[in-house]
């Protein structure tokens, strides 16, 4: 099937439209925040938060919120968001207490949450075994399939309700970031003097980490636990390869994120590859291209 035909049939079909809208909005969010994430060196925090979210999914499952219906999916999302924000703030607090040893703090929170998640998955699973021995094998496979979806993303089951929630959250984070942009830029540029210039660095850090945690959870809807952080790193890193002007860096970053998402979806839909990894791969290729452009430009100078 050629691309045009694919667009005409698949995109027009009601099952894929919410996927596309959600993916593009979340990519724009990733593009905007990734500039801060790269320059403020928060990439590893993003990684920590996304893995911590796995623990959140475990909690949701034990509470019986399986995400099978739209309503329970939203319930699950709420639990995961709450858990991820707590994880981000916990990382911030731990690294403050340990005098800036952020890598240790992330290492602790990441592994503890992953471990918690797997234990809770097993607890939820054994609950099913106990309920109904006849279906234990099928349930077991289901759980493994679920774990895979959580780890690598499954955007294809996004209906309009889920897309609406994802788009809503993304817009809230984008709007807050836009309103606070000067504060965030000052903080990211020169945190040691923030307080002397009337910008509370602790509060700014916490606010940004909350927005980052929300964004990671949104990116997880596309790319899953393992790849979510990539969407919050690659576009900004790519944009910084090709510009050193503030507004154009943000512009390029969002553009690269959206192009990566569009190309990833096209390839994914056409070749029947998983969408999340296809998007992350496309963004990675764009990053490599900008890196080569950067090298070529500096050689020409």
């Amino acid at each position: 099937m050629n691309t045009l035909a694919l667009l005409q049939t698949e995109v027009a079909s009601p099952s894929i439209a919410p996927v596309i809208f959600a993916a593009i909005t979340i990519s724009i969010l990733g593009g905007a925040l990734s500039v801060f994430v790269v320059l403020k060196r928060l990439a590893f925090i993003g990684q920590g938060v996304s893995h911590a979210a796995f623990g959140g999914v475990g909690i949701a499952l034990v509470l019986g919120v399986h995400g099978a219906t739209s309503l329970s999916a939203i319930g699950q999302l709420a639990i995961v968001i709450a858990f991820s924000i707590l994880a981000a703030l916990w990382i911030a607090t731990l690294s403050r207490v340990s005098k800036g040893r952020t890598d240790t703090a992330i290492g602790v929170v990441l592994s503890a949450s992953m471990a918690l998640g797997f234990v809770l998955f097993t607890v939820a699973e054994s609950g099913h075994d106990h309920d109904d021995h006849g279906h234990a094998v099928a349930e077991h496979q289901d759980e493994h399939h679920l774990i895979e979806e959580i780890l690598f993303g499954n955007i294809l089951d996004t209906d309009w309700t889920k897309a609406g929630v994802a788009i809503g959250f993304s817009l809230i984070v984008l709007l807050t970031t836009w309103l606070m942009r000067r504060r965030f830029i000052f903080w990211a540029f020169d945190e040691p003097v923030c307080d002397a210039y009337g910008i509370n660095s602790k509060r700014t850090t916490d606010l940004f980490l909350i927005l980052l945690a929300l964004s990671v959870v949104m990116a997880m809807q596309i790319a899953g636990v393992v790849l979510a952080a990539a969407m919050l790193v690659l576009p900004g890193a790519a944009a910084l390869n090709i510009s050193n002007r503030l507004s154009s860096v943000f512009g390029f970053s969002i553009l690269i994120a959206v192009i990566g998402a569009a190309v990833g979806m096209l390839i994914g839909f056409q070749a029947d590859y998983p969408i999340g990894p296809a998007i992350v791969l496309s963004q990675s290729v764009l990053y490599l291209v900008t890196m080569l452009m950067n090298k070529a430009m500096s050689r020409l100078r």
Partner: protein
Amino acid sequence: MSSDAQPAVEIDHVSYTYPATGFDAQPVDALQNISFKVDERTKLGVLGPNGGGKSTLIKLILGIIAPSQGKIRVFGLSPSKARSEGLVGYLPQRIEADLDWPMSVEQVIEHGRFSKLKPWQRLSEQDHKAVRHAMELVDVLDLANRHIGSLSGGQLQRVMIARAIAGEPKLLVLDEPTVGVDIAGQQRFGNMIETLQKEMGLTLIVVTHDMRAIAAMADRIACLSRSLHFHDSPQGLTPGVLAQVFAHDVAGVFGDIHIDAHRADECDDPSHIKPSGCGCEDQGCSDHGADK
């Protein structure tokens, strides 16, 4: 200088103790019972050895920390209120900004206006004017569109001073501004500060351990070594006072200007030099600060 006028900074019996953090840490007394005033439109040099409480004093004046005891007023307001009203500008000792940020010199200096704006407010014509004026005063107008990471050390420092004065403060706090600057550079820096003070009617607090720099630019000097040892004009800063503040360091560093550091030098046993740097325990030296 009229003493009836409201002082720019008033420090009244201030002590500060850093709380103990960690398993085996002890609380640290950084400042003990400090009192002095800085009159408006004067230049105060704060001199003292490393660990003498200079940075703590700055944090207190900027309202980043609150005194454990005593009271500080900046233009009659609490330090944090004065800062949030944009009355105080600050130049940090080390420039730790992330110079990889895709920002121009002008965009960095605009940060100095942020305390006057709500986060979502745009910069007004007046804000842009103040930014241009600040750039003019420190002579960085021609760098306006340059990338912040492309500047030399001296240019970067001037840009950071422009950022500090872009908010049109009445008090400017400079933390070790001449570290690593050669004599000619110090001279230029002194002239620039002089111009700033005249043009903007600034009160200046310059914190340093560099006595040459301070003697060149200050109207009054406060010597700080946990407690206040001296607060008067530079002419009154005798070798004896310096010896007290800096203990035995002084003779070595300033041997060429014949400082009589006998008080500290008379210590036969270096371990008897008081931790405050105030002479030798054997001599029974006493603090004789001007404000006592």
